[in-house]
Structures are given as C-alpha cells and as structure tokens.
C-alpha cells in the first residue's frame, strides 16, 4: 500500500480543521494564535505534498515564505497580546467584547 500525497493533504485538511476549531472554541488569545500557526502548518504540508506530486519545487519554496510570514506574524501578534495583557492583565478575548452591535 503506497502513501499518495493525497493522504498527506487529507491529513493536512484535518489539521487545518482542528486549527480552525481552536479559534472557534477557545478564548485564550495565545491558544487561538497557536491554532492559527497550526493552520499554517497544515497549509505548508499541503504545499509540500502537492509540490511532490506535481514534481515542482515551488511547493517547498512557498513553505519557506510562509514560515517567514508566520514568524513576523508571531512577533507582532505576541506584541499585541502582551500589550493587551499589560493593560487588562488577561489574555482571554472575552474581556475584549466592548465593541459590538
């Protein structure tokens, strides 16, 4: 039984889903943020697997760029979270629901 890239992509899809569920269900900003990272990882896996099937290196290149982007995002995101924490001393987004309606 041979593992086709399809398997990886399906797995990636599931991972992506779990990541999304983290955002939809958790309310700790950090965890939600990690979920985003997880989703990006799932996408990366998709890229690589697809690239292998297509026999294109672009898939792997993309992963590198995504990683850079993710890194930058992490920095900014954590900065924001820290800023929030500094004022409210909490990382739960439920405290941040004043703007609505």
């Amino acid at each position, binding site marked *: 039984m041979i593992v086709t890239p399809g398997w990886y992509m399906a797995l990636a899809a599931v991972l992506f889903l779990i990541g999304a569920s983290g955002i939809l269900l958790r309310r700790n900003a950090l965890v939600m943020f990690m979920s985003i990272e997880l989703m*990006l990882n799932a996408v990366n896996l998709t890229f690589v697997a697809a690239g292998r099937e297509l026999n294109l290196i672009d*898939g792997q290149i993309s992963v590198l*760029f995504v990683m850079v*982007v993710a890194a930058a995002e992490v920095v900014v995101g954590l900065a924001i*979270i820290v800023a929030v924490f500094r004022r409210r001393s909490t990382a739960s*987004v439920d405290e*941040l629901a004043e703007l609505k*309606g």
Partner: protein
Amino acid sequence: MNLNALAIAPEAILTLAVVVLLLVDVQFHPGHRWWGMAAGLGLLGATTASVLQWVDFRGADGEAFFSGMMLVDGFSSFAGLVVFPLTGLGLMTAWPLVRRLEGRGAEFVTLVLIAATGAHLMAGAGNLLMLFIGLEVFSISLYVLAGFTRDRADSDEAALKYFLLGGLASAIFLYGVALVFAATGSLSINGIGEYLETTVLLRPGILLAGIALLVVGLGFKVSAAPFHVWAPDVYQGAPGAVTGFLASSAKVAGFAALARVLTVALGARIDDWAPAVAVIAAVSIVIGTLLALAQTDLKRMLAYSSVAHAGFILSAVTAGGAGVPDMWFYVATYAVQVLAAFAVASVVSGPATGRSPLTDYAGLSARSPFLAAMLGLMMLAMGGIPVTAGFVGKVAVFRSAIDAGYLWLVITGVVATVAGLFFYLRVIVLMYMQPAAEVPDSQGARLSVPLGVGIALSVAALVTLLAGLVPWPLLEWLRDALPL
C-alpha cells in the same frame, strides 16, 4: 530573467524612504518634520514612478517582471496612482496623532508607508504567493496601526480582533492558494489563467474548493458580508486618524487583488464565481445598509456603510474583465470619500479616540462650517446623489451588473441606496438642522481644523465633485486599467 528598475520602482523608493527615515530618526531624533519630509518624498517618488509606469504600460498588455512575480500594467500602475496619494492624504489627516505620539511617531509613519507598499504589491503581484506576501505586509502593519494608541481599551481590542480574525482569514486564503496550486500546478496568476483556459479539468473539485477559499480570504480583506464582521469593531476601535487610511487602502488593495485573481487567474471559471460574487454583493449591500441604520456611532455607521459599498463594488466585478474600469472608478472615488469622512471624525471626536457618538456632530455646522460642509458632501456622495462621484460610481457599477445580467442585484442595490440615504441624511440633519444647544455634552466651542486635515479634505472634496461633474476623462483612462 527580465529585470527592470521601473518595475518595482514604487516599492523600492518607499522602502528606501522607510530605511532612511528610521536610520536618521534613530541617530538624530529630528522630530516629526523630518518624518513628514521623508514620507512625503517617498510617496512623491512612488507616485511619480507609478505615473511613469502608467505612461509606459497603460493598456491591458502589461509586462511580467522578476520571473512573473510582478506584473506592471495599467491595472497595477493605476493602483499605485490611487494608493500612494491616498496614503499621503491619510498621513496628513493622521499628523495630529503622529505629533502626539512623539517617540513612536517614526514607527507610525514607517508602518503606514510599508502598508502602502504592501497594498501596491497586492495590486501588482503576478504570483499567488507574492500576492500572499504583499497581503501580509499590508495586513500586519495595519494590525499594529490599529492598536497603536494605548490610551484607550478600544484600540487594543480592535488590534487583537483584527489580528486574530485577519490571521484566520489569511490562513484560509493561503489554504486556497495551496489548493489552487495543487489543482493547476502553478502559482503564477497568468499561468493559472492559461492553464484553465487551455485544459478542461475532469475533476475540478480541488480547484473549486480553492477558489471558494480564495474568495473567502479576499472577501475578508474588502469586508464583504459575511466576512465583514471584523470591520465595525476595528473601524470603531482604531484611532480616528488611522481608520481612514485603514478603510480606504484596504478597499483599494483588496479589490485590486480580488479583481486580478478572479478575472485573470480564474477568468475561465467566471460562470462559477460570478453568481457567488453577485450573492455576496447583495448580502453585503443589504446587511451593511440595514445595520448602518441602527448605529449611533459615526465611525461604526461608516464601517457598515463600507460593507454596503463593498457590495456595490462587487456588483461591478460580476461583469468580469468588462467591469474592472467601473470597479476602479468606484473604488478610487469611494476610497477618497471614506478617507475624508473619517478625517472629519478624527477632528471632531479626536485623532486618538475610537468612539465617535453621533451626538458629537449635532450643530456641527455652527461649530465648524467647513467640516460640516465636507462631511455633508461626503455623506451625499456615499448616498449616491448626483453631481458627486458617488452617483457616477453607482451608475457605473450598476451598468456593469445589468450588462452581466444581474438586474435583480441592481434593483436590490437601488432600493438599499434609498434606505442608506436615511442614515447619511441623518448626519446632515444633525449637523445642519439641529442646533448644538439641543444636544447635551456637545461643546459649543468652534473647532479648529488642523492644516493637514484641511488640505486633505479640500483635495477630497475637489476630487469628489470633479469626478461627479466631469467623470468622462477619468472613465476613458480607466478603460486602459484592465488587468488582461
């Protein structure tokens, strides 16, 4: 590999400006005048570069540079012509805030410039990954800007929400890219387009899923319903001086990317996505209008109205490539209007504060006739009253939609326009027909208009009226701004 300095001149110039600005600032702390000068020169240069690109590459037959990463054509150069001056106006209106930020002012200006760069990258990207990077450059700087003032809780709430939801959206978008890549074996927009033109996919499942996710990601950027949820909170929470730039540039960049991806890369699939886009447009128009009716805060109201406008613009996109000029007309003029409206808000409610209750605007015509007139004009323009650019824009997009056979969408649009008039008029009523005395806690003192805001508003008013009275030359140029 076709290297051409002009191809990335705008980005290069702006980046240079950013670097120089930062280095000099770190060394000598020259203060906000220097920031202004550097930013001004950078934007001027970028604009000039875009003008040159426009002159050389106007018309659909653009050229691809950096192995297809950057496309330079009428489309991208026009985007530059819109984005960079817009950024300039945005900075002008934000200047009072910049001065109050003191130390962090340099960072603020830097981020605005980088965001502008990212916006233009989105418009010019010839490769989905490039597009993604530009999108992130643009978004991440906006995340920061949204949370830049720390004197109020709203600001960082806005930032965090924008960041988390933005992250979700870009992840979805990226997944879409990956799926399209898997489905077509290419990341280059033109490449994908050609592939889809030439080959008939027997099993288009992945491609279609990818398109769906791409639309989600881009719909989020242009704040089309139901992906608009972030907009009201972020617009209201972000500092008054930032919101204008945020709202306007996001529309321009987002629609540039959207139009290019849909019409070039997925042009062959128009029958698949056009109906979906039409539905999104209708939903955005209705939701945006209805919810704007219920608002009591100007910035929040404008946020919802911007959702409705996203819907109007999308109805031009339903016509595919044919609709792009009309889309551009609407986007460009609307961006100016929304910037100006938020500029007024930033003066009346304060550049750093987020909330701007409508009661602040009661009797504004007495406290500052200029601001009242400007805001009134913008309201009429957004309401689509003739003699303003808003009317021509509406006619333009409705033309495209009817051309594409979406009469029902147009009828929804016109009816919603009338309902929308209600809240635009309400602002005018407050400003002109209700003396400030009637309303509590509206300080009767005359407002002084900062110079930058004054200039920005005058320019915006000029554009709005000119584009409303004699739109014809502009429309003729726009015919050359096709992405194909």
